[in-house]
């Protein structure tokens, strides 16, 4: 009876998502106590803008994790997307117009190679994505000669990453549009339902007549494209691409997805959880940097937090 007394949206909600939102409120309170300016609208909007970059990348990661796979090629896909967009921008007005699509296209290409490896060659996803990450790094190192490239981001990229509409950062609007689209695709299309089905049991999905290999392939390509789009936005934010700009996004992207209650084994998870995870990670990063925590402390905090949350929600069933 008491359970029925609760509003339906609370009863249906995943405890992991509720915990993540609870942690966000806790972090806001701690931040507010630590510094008054932490709760000012300007600062929070700034945090939302920073969160959007991670949000775009984590959306792709979530698609792949829902399949029960993982994408470890995020770091150099982000960098490749950023570098290629900036590189094309150097080729006159046509290049400037094509900068953003071309950056995303490069990411989709890396993702498609991952997808071929996982779906058709049956290579474990962590292995093939590690390998394509190394190849993408190799290509970028040759392209740049080992230095950060001199090409700079186009005005359109800068506008998308740093501009505002009615005071709301454009990056946050992009994330919102992307989020609504993702919720629609995951919940209301056969592609989305297939993703959940494959994550639960690929064999059963295959026997139900789903072309599982094509779905896996598309999901990896989408993940690569979104990582590269995140890179394009980051390049717009920083005005240029840099070596190893993507390294800082692999762990937070996985952490955001996992903290949001998406099962690392696949087949279970909601986009709201990922949104909560992204905001949680961004706030945590921001508090740690406000407290002037060194890089070492941040790495340890991330690692411990991921393990802790996984121990709470992400355990495999015991064999019995």
């Amino acid at each position, binding site marked *: 009876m008491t359970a029925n007394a609760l509003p339906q949206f609370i009863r249906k909600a995943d405890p992991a998502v509720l915990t993540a939102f609870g942690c966000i409120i806790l972090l806001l309170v701690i931040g507010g106590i630590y510094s008054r300016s932490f709760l000012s609208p300007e600062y929070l909007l700034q945090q939302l803008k920073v969160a959007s970059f991670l949000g775009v990348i984590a959306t792709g990661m979530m698609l792949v994790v829902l399949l029960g796979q*993982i994408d470890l090629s995020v770091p150099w896909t982000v960098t490749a997307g950023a570098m290629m967009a900036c590189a094309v921008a150097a080729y006159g007005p046509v290049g400037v117009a094509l900068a953003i699509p071309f950056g995303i296209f490069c990411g989709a290409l890396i993702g498609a190679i991952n997808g071929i*490896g996982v779906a058709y*060659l*049956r*290579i*474990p996803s*962590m*292995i*093939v994505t*590690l*390998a*394509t*990450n*190394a*190849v*993408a*790094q*190799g*290509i970028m*190192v*040759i392209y740049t*000669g*080992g230095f950060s490239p001199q090409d700079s981001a186009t005005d359109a990229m800068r506008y998308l990453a740093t501009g505002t509409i009615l005071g709301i950062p454009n990056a946050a609007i992009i994330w919102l549009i992307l989020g609504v689209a993702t919720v629609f695709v995951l919940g209301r299309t056969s592609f989305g339902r297939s993703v959940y089905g494959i994550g639960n049991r*690929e*064999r059963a*999905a*295959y*026997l139900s007549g789903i072309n*599982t290999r094509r779905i896996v392939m598309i999901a990896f390509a989408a993940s690569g494209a979104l990582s590269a789009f995140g890179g394009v936005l980051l390049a717009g934010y920083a005005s240029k691409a840099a070596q*190893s700009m993507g*390294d800082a996004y*692999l*762990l937070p992207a*996985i952490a955001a997805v*996992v903290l949001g209650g998406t099962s*690392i*084994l696949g087949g279970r998870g909601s986009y709201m959880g990922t949104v909560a995870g992204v905001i949680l990670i961004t706030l945590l990063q921001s508090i740690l940097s406000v407290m002037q925590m*060194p*890089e*070492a*402390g*941040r*790495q*340890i*905090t*991330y*690692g*411990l937090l*991921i*393990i802790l949350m*996984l*121990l709470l929600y*992400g*355990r*495999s*069933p*015991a*064999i019995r």
Partner: protein
Amino acid sequence: MKDWQYRLAEHRGTLIALAIFIVMFAIYTANHPAGFTANVVQTAANKGALLAFVAIAQTLVVITAGIDLSVGMILLLTNCLASWVVVGSPMETAFGAVLVLLAGAACGALNGAIVIYGRLQPIVATIATGAVFYGVALLLRPFPGGSVNEDLADALTGKIFGVVPASLIVLLAVILLVWIPFSHSVYGRAAYAAGSSEPAAYISGMPIRRGKFLAYTLAGLVAAIGGLFLTFFSYTGEAAYASGNAYTLFSIAAVVLGGVSLFGGKGSAVGAVFGALAFRTIGDLLFVFDLDPLWQPLFQGLILLAAVSLGAFALFRVKNRLEWFL
């Protein structure tokens, strides 16, 4: 099949890795300006041994159907620790070295405890512990520096009797004192069995948990030996994120080249050692052929991609299409 055919089939991966290594090393020395001399062999052995230790560590985990993405970070952590403690008088140095090995084993045991008793996926669990280990390494050495007992370092990276590289002797000792006893023990068999089919091993009453835990712990220990050797080569400790990641990546390439199945239950650390030596030699081929060093990351990435794609040839043996879908 006769008895020897079974034995050949069991060691096929190791023998292929040995063959690849011999061919690559022959090409390497034939084109090296100095040729096949003790010094060339020593340099190659030192570089190869470092990766070989990490590859042994990775093998120990991979045979249990797990993966250790933190192995490179354990290497960094023990490297940074060694640059503090492996100094001073012989007694202090010995004590420091033991401390480094214990630290490595503790890292491995932590991974094992989280994966086995916490029942987390090895991929994500070791990425997360890898971040923790890297953080600790960074705490120990925010900037590259430190020192090491140079007499010991020179002895272990030099040549014995002016011919045999000492690092190869240590590598052999690790195989004989860690790998062979482990893989022939009940726990080692249990680790293999758990990698092959965990429910079957469980039903057969094998000590799978202790076997896997021992495998993870020994992996940390062997990675720490690698960390000690890294310190002996460089005389310093450095928490370089990219280099830790590279070692993790190369260790996976080495075990795949060495015939260790990433699905668990199959392969040997001896094969992984030859895989590591072969991988290093292939990477060094670029230098003897005077190619631009900028091409090295791409070259190594492509080797890795080719090596992991080799595992896909198992598809040709699939009899039932449903086997494609795990």
